[in-house]
Structure formats: structure tokens, C-alpha cells
């Protein structure tokens, strides 16, 4: 197939022996129909779930309109973060500067909503017209007595991944501003879970059962006051390494808070996430409680998964997600339910993650960085995949090709993390792979070799009930 010349080194096939050497972390080639977004997008999705902060987007209307309540991050309290606030810059401000409008907007907003803190996002144009956003933020902060934090997320300043970093730098200014707090023993912060479909609530429940105290959740269901005292925790548990790793590193350097990388997808990774915390605290008691919890959960989960595993045996999946770290967990989770990964890729993976993928995947699996619809559809057809796992831009392509689809991004409807999430994941993969609608698609007819079990998902007994 045709692959842009500049992209040749961003596609490879898993094979034993030689290292993959995938050329990732590159800027996208101009002209590509890339699935990637920008710095602003990265910062916005990361900070958005801080529910009691004000999020003001400084720029023309689009950047605010497109990020208005698009992420399914749930809140147990304030819903203010779901509103869309923008300075809606017009031609006049582009010529004469937008600082005045930004100042007025902030004052109006803070007067009305009395937020705990405010984040002000710079968009492309702000970087170019030269507004001194920091100065405005400092002034408002002084006048209103709350933290007003500039997020320097001009879209052109790198990739979405750089946006995560910018978000972390804004958060870093908030961390450490509450030195009075006293935290109980075994206190951790959860970094990099965004509480999609309430996943964070499940995870915190597990940790609490173990006897671990959750201090700040950054940023899922996040609260400004928790983040202020985040430096008092004994450990940062970091998921989705792409997004929050930078904050973890900053906190390590500044406050000597150690961190560990975890993933909550799939049985092994979820269990490791609990055990590793127990090991960290060198507590036999925590470890025993974790063991008990895992045993209990698996006791119900494994039998429940068996049916799905049997039905899905031999199915092939294509994965294209934001970060390669998540892809690793997905490959494992799919394997657990009998699904083989035929294609795996990410928008912003790093070299180490891709090497892990190569080791993990079966020989012949296509591994790709920063892909595009043309490539993805070719790979899917070439490998005769049955299911696609991706986000909003991949969904319609998968459906047009006649593939089942599971949203593992912002638009997921069910919690997919943890043990409960693993069962949800199996159900979702099963339901989409087995839906009788594929009988009407041409792609399906071509695959006479795959006999489809058409038992609807609801008729399967669920051992949790």
C-alpha cells in the first residue's frame, strides 16, 4: 500500500529478534490526514476534569466550542467544569490585543462563580498577538485572592503530548500551596485517571479496601484543594504515562514524592497496580488485603469471562489509541478474552512503549505511530480484523468497513478499568463482534471462514448478578 515516504519508519511489523526502532515522537508530516490533535487539546483534556476550577479559553470561539463537555469525566460534586467559557476573540482584539477582554471576562466569571482556582488556556492566536496572559492572571489573582493559572497551550507549540506537559506545569504551580494539611499514613495521589464513566470511583474503592488513603485524584473528579496538598502524599500512582508523568517527575524533584507507573486495564495490570502500592509501603497488612481483594474479584470475574473468551476465540482486533501505554494493556486484556491483536498503534507513543508492544504482540502484528485513515483501513483489511478499538475519528471508518467497534477514549459509555471494567470490556467487545447487523455488510460476507455466534449479550448469564 501507499505510505507517505516520510512515514515509512513509523510503521513496522512485530518479529522476533531485531528491535523495532519505530520512529515515533515525530511531528506529523504536513499534508497527512493525521488523527492527532494539538497542544491546546492535550492541556484541555488533562485539566478539564478539575471540577471546581474555572476553565476559561482565551481565543476565538472554536477552541472553546469544540471542547465543551466532550470528555465523559464524571464529577461527584461541582458541574461547573462542564460549561464552556471563552473570550471569543474577534478581529478587533486580534489587532489591538485581547488582554482587556481577558481581564474583564475573568472578573465577570469569578464574581459570578466564586471558583477555587482558574485556568486560563492560551490558544494559537494568543501566542502570536503577544497578549501577556501571565500578567493578567497575576493581576486578577491579586485582586480576587484565588490562584489564576496561565496554561501556555498555544496549539502550534508541539504535539498533543506537549500539551500534557504544559498542563502538568500549570498543576505544578498549584501543588504545594497548602502546607497546613496533615495526611494519614499510606496516602497516595492517583495521577492520570480522568474518571471516564466513573472508573476512578472504582479504583479508589479498591485502594480504600486495601487500607490506602487517597489524597488527590489528578485530575479525574479533581478538586483544587486536594491538589494543593498533593505534595504531602507518600506516593504518586501514575496511569497513562503520557499525560501525567511530567507532573510526577516535577513532584519527585521538588518534594521528593516518589512515583510508580501503573495501568488499570486488564486483570494482571490492575492487580499489579494494587500489589505495587502495598510493596511500596512495605506493609504486610496492605498486601494481604490486596490479595484478598484480588482473590474475591477474580473469583467472580474469571468464570464470568469464560463465556466471552470461548465465543471470541480467534477474533482479531485492531487498536488505535492516544498513547501506546494504554495499547499495551489493551493487547493483554484482549488476549485474556481470546482476541488476537493484529494491528496496534497510537498517536503519541514513545520508543520504549513500542518495544514493549513488539515483545508482547504475536509475530506479524502491525505496529504503527501517528497513523491516518487510509493506512488504518488498509491494515484492517490486510489483517482481516474483526474489531476496532479507538476513538471518535476511528469509529465511522471501522463501521464503514463492517467492523465491530469499541470506544476506548472520551466517548466510552461503560467503565473499562478495574475488574468490573474488564467484564464490561469483554461484554462490549462481545456485543459489537457478535451483533447480527454484520450479516448485512459486504465485508462480513467475505469472511466465510469465521462462524459467528449470534447469542445476544443479554442472554448470557452474568455471574456478578
Amino acid at each position: 500500500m501507499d505510505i507517505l515516504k516520510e512515514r515509512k519508519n513509523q510503521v513496522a511489523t512485530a518479529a522476533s529478534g531485531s528491535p523495532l526502532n519505530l520512529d515515533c515522537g515525530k511531528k506529523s508530516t504536513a499534508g497527512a490526514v493525521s488523527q492527532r490533535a494539538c497542544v491546546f487539546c492535550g492541556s484541555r483534556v488533562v485539566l478539564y476534569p478539575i471540577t471546581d476550577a474555572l476553565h476559561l479559553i482565551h481565543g476565538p470561539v472554536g477552541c472553546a466550542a469544540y471542547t465543551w463537555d466532550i470528555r465523559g469525566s464524571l464529577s461527584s460534586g461541582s458541574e461547573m467544569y462542564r460549561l464552556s467559557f471563552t473570550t471569543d476573540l474577534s478581529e478587533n482584539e486580534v489587532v489591538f490585543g485581547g488582554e482587556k477582554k481577558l481581564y474583564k471576562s475573568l472578573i465577570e466569571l469569578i464574581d459570578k462563580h466564586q471558583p477555587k482556582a482558574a485556568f486560563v488556556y492560551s490558544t494559537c492566536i494568543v501566542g502570536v498577538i503577544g497578549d501577556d496572559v501571565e500578567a493578567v492572571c497575576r493581576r486578577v489573582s491579586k485582586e480576587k485572592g484565588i490562584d489564576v493559572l496561565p496554561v501556555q497551550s498555544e496549539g502550534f507549540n508541539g504535539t498533543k503530548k506537549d500539551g500534557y506537559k504544559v498542563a502538568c506545569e500549570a498543576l505544578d504551580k498549584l501543588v504545594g500551596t497548602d502546607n497546613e494539611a496533615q495526611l494519614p499514613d499510606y496516602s497516595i495521589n492517583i495521577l492520570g485517571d480522568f474518571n471516564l464513566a466513573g472508573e476512578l470511583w472504582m479504583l479508589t474503592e479498591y485502594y480504600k479496601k486495601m487500607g490506602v488513603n487517597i489524597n488527590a485524584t489528578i485530575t479525574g473528579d479533581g478538586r483544587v484543594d486536594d491538589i494543593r496538598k498533593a505534595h504531602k502524599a507518600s506516593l504518586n500512582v501514575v496511569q497513562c504515562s503520557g499525560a501525567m508523568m511530567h507532573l510526577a517527575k516535577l513532584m519527585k524533584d521538588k518534594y521528593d514524592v516518589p512515583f510508580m507507573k501503573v495501568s488499570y486495564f486488564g486483570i494482571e495490570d490492575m492487580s499489579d497496580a494494587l500489589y505495587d502500592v502495598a510493596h511500596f509501603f512495605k506493609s504486610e497488612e496492605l498486601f494481604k488485603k490486596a490479595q484478598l481483594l484480588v482473590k474475591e474479584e477474580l473469583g467472580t470475574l474469571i468464570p464470568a469471562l469464560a463465556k466471552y473468551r470461548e465465543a471470541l476465540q480467534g477474533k482479531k482486533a485492531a487498536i488505535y489509541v492516544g498513547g501506546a501505554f494504554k495499547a499495551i494493556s489493551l493487547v493483554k486484556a484482549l488476549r485474556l478474552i481470546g482476541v488476537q491483536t493484529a494491528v496496534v498503534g497510537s498517536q503519541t507513543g514513545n520508543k520504549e512503549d513500542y518495544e514493549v508492544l513488539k515483545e508482547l504482540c504475536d509475530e506479524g502484528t502491525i505496529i504503527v505511530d501517528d497513523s491516518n485513515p487510509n493506512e488504518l483501513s488498509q491494515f484492517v483489511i490486510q489483517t482481516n480484523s474483526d474489531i476496532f478499538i479507538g476513538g471518535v475519528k476511528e469509529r465511522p471508518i471501522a463501521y464503514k468497513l463492517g467492523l465491530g467497534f469499541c470506544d476506548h477514549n472520551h466517548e466510552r459509555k461503560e467503565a473499562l478499568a478495574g475488574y468490573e471494567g474488564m467484564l464490561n470490556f469483554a461484554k462490549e467487545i462481545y456485543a459489537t463482534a457478535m451483533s447480527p447487523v454484520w450479516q448485512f455488510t459486504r465485508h462480513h460476507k467475505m469472511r466465510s471462514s469465521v462462524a459467528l455466534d449470534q447469542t445476544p449479550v443479554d442472554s448470557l448469564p452474568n455471574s456478578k448478578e
Partner: protein
Amino acid sequence: MLLRHTQKASETIERKALTVNPAKTCQPVGAMYAALGVHGCLPHSHGSQGCCSYHRSALTRHYKEPVMASTSSFTEGSSVFGGQANLLQALTNIYAIYEPEIVAVHSTCLSETIGDDLGQICSKAVADGKVPEGKHIVYAPTPSYVGSHVTGYANMLKAFVEKFPIKTDEKKRQINLLSGWVEPSDMRELKRIMAMMDVKSVLLPDTSDVLDAPMTGEFQMYPNGGTTIPEMVSMGDSMATVAAGWFATRDAAIALENQCKVKFTQTDIPVGLKATDRFIQAVAKEARVSVPESINVERGRLVDALTDMQQYFYGKKVAIYGDPDNIIPLTEFLIDLGMIPTAVVSGTPGKEFMKRMDALLGDIPEARYLNGAQADMFLMHGWIKENPVDLIIGNTYGKYIARDENIPFLRYGFPILDRIGHSYFPTVGYMGTLNLVTKILDKLMDKIDETALEEKFELVM
């Protein structure tokens, strides 16, 4: 209550700067949508990668279809030294790999502000041989800080009209139909109406069979639909142009008239009875045909439904928001049904909106209406709190208000992120209006059924 912060409009702190929950988005997405209505055309976003990604996601969420567009992928360097190199490299890659007939370049706030001149860069691209023989490039400046998504649509439409139509000596027995921002289903319906009237026409743009493409088991980078290049070329020889939708089509219609001496009639998008009447009459006049009986029969069926059900509409208060070309005729129609539009909001700026609304709503003391930056969903909600309505009509973003205030809510306009149907069933023409009427009635009558006391719960309505 998701919108628990909203107060009555009269009790709200006066805003001077801020926009809350905008009733619009920015230009480039409109340019992208218009370009998708041209066959074999790849929209290209000249700016940062995120813009392109957001616009594609927005269109995909609305149409549930893959949306292809490329980007210049600006870097920090491009923002300092200009984006010319990026665009030139992009064009080389695009023609080599994606093989479009046309690349439709639109700008962004970033490329506009740093002063990239699309005209100059595109000329250079042609001069440098970046555009292969027989392939084309069009461009439209679409700064995000001017106008709204509707402006972007209008600018891209104008760019096509300036590029392709050629006037020869041979007048063609056809008319041009410039369509404002409507659904693929509506474009299909417009073509059906033309066929019924036996009028040969060129519809530009035409997103039917592009963004409502059938499932084939294949991914088609360029679906079968869209206005073709020969069709666009032929527009210069048409008898006349009918331009439906002042905000989206006027500039293009004027450009075509100036360029090829093809006169135009401006109409509204044919939503509602009177607007469809005016549209049909304009087509009949310009194409010099008489209105066939089959069209009159459709009109009769619509009138029949309206009269049958008038009691359910009369006196009902309604809040409407969305794009001016769509909600101007819609407001007119709802007034004709006996409903009272008490709150009408459009984020798209432009004096024409208030002029039309003054004429429609000036005599209705309860009616409040505004367009432009602060005409946002927050303002409309404040108005609704002050004067509650029986129905809200607008895009998906109204669902928060509808839920908090427990008001029936009809999804209409762009974007609709949480329901389907809009790309399949039209709301233009007499039949489309009948579809709309049915949907309005469903909402009003479901509410009656839900809230009726047991003894008043009726089987026959």
C-alpha cells in the same frame, strides 16, 4: 441541575466580555463542510493540527461518517517564519498519496494572524508545479475570529464559484442552486424537487452521498456524491442562480453574477410553508417553468396537516437558536403555526439577522432576540427562566437547558451529537416541513401524555 448557575436574564451580572456556552463555532469547520460537498475534494486546514482534528471530530459526531481532511501541521517555526513551506510540502504529499481532484485550502486564526497570504502561496504552488496537471486548488480565507462557522461555509462556497464556472457563448437550459448549510438529506430533497419541476440544475455544494453514504464494506476516501468539476464549470452558462440562505450564499451568488453575468434571486432556505412557496416560485421563474401539480399536491398535504393539528400549536411559546439562514425561515413558520417565539438567539453576527427578526417579531411584545458574540446559550437560558417556553428548538447543546427546565426539546441544526435522523430525513420543501411539523407535534403531544392527569389522559388526540 447542570446549569444551576443560570439566573433570570434580568438578574444576571451584565456581561461585557465573556461568552458562555456559545451558540456558534469558528469559520474553518464551515469551509470544511462546504468543501466536502464537492466531488473528489479534500479539505485542507492551513494551521495547527488541532484545528483539523477538532473540525473532523465535530463533523463526524454530527454525521456519523468518516470525514477526511488534511492539515499543514504548523509548528513553532511556521508560526514565526510563515506557513508557506508547510503548505507546499503538504500539497506535494496530498497529491501523491491521497490523489484528490481538488484541494480546498482554508486558513485558520493562526495562519491569518501571522499574515500568510493563501492566494500568493497557492499561486506559487501552481507555478512550482506542486499541483499536477488536471488537478486543482482553491482557497478561502477563514479567520476564526471573524463571523462564525456559517461565514466559513460562505467563504468556501464563494471560492468554488470564483474558481470553476466559465462563461461561454452557449447558454445552458439550467439553473444554479446555491445551498446554505443544510443536511445531506436536505440537499437530496432539493434535487428531488428540481426533478419534480423538471428543472435541470447544478446544486452547489451537495453533500448527499458524501455524508450520508451507504455502507458498502469499503472505506472510500472520496465518496460518490458531491458537485463535480464539469458541473461547476457549467454554472457560468446557467440561466440564473437561486441562492437559498442569505448568510451562506449571498457572497457566492454576487461573485458568480459579477464574473459570469448570471443573475441571481436570493431566497431563504425553504423551511416552512411561506419560505418554500417563495423558493418554488423563484425556481419556477428563473427556470421559466410552471409549478407542476405534483408540487401543489405536496403543498396541499402540508397545509392539511397544519389545519388538522392547529389547536396543538396555537399560543405555544418556543425558544429557537442556531444558524441565521435556518432559524429565520423557521421562526417565520412557527409564527404561522400560531406559536410564539419568545427567545431567538444566533451566535453568528450580521445585521441582516436583526433586520429580518425585527420584521418577523417586532409586533410580538414577548419576543426577545439577539445575534452575535453574547447571543449565547447562557443568555437564552436566562430569557427562558424569565419567560418559560413550551418547546426548545436547536442543536444538541440545548439538552442541558431542556433537562434542567423540563421542557420538550427538538434537535434541529448543527451540531446534533446525540441523535441520528437529521442526515436521512429532510426539513426543507413541503415534505421536509411536514417532517418537521410531525417532530414538533411529537414533542408537544408526548409532553401532554406525560403530564396529563389520569382522568384527562386521552386515547384520541
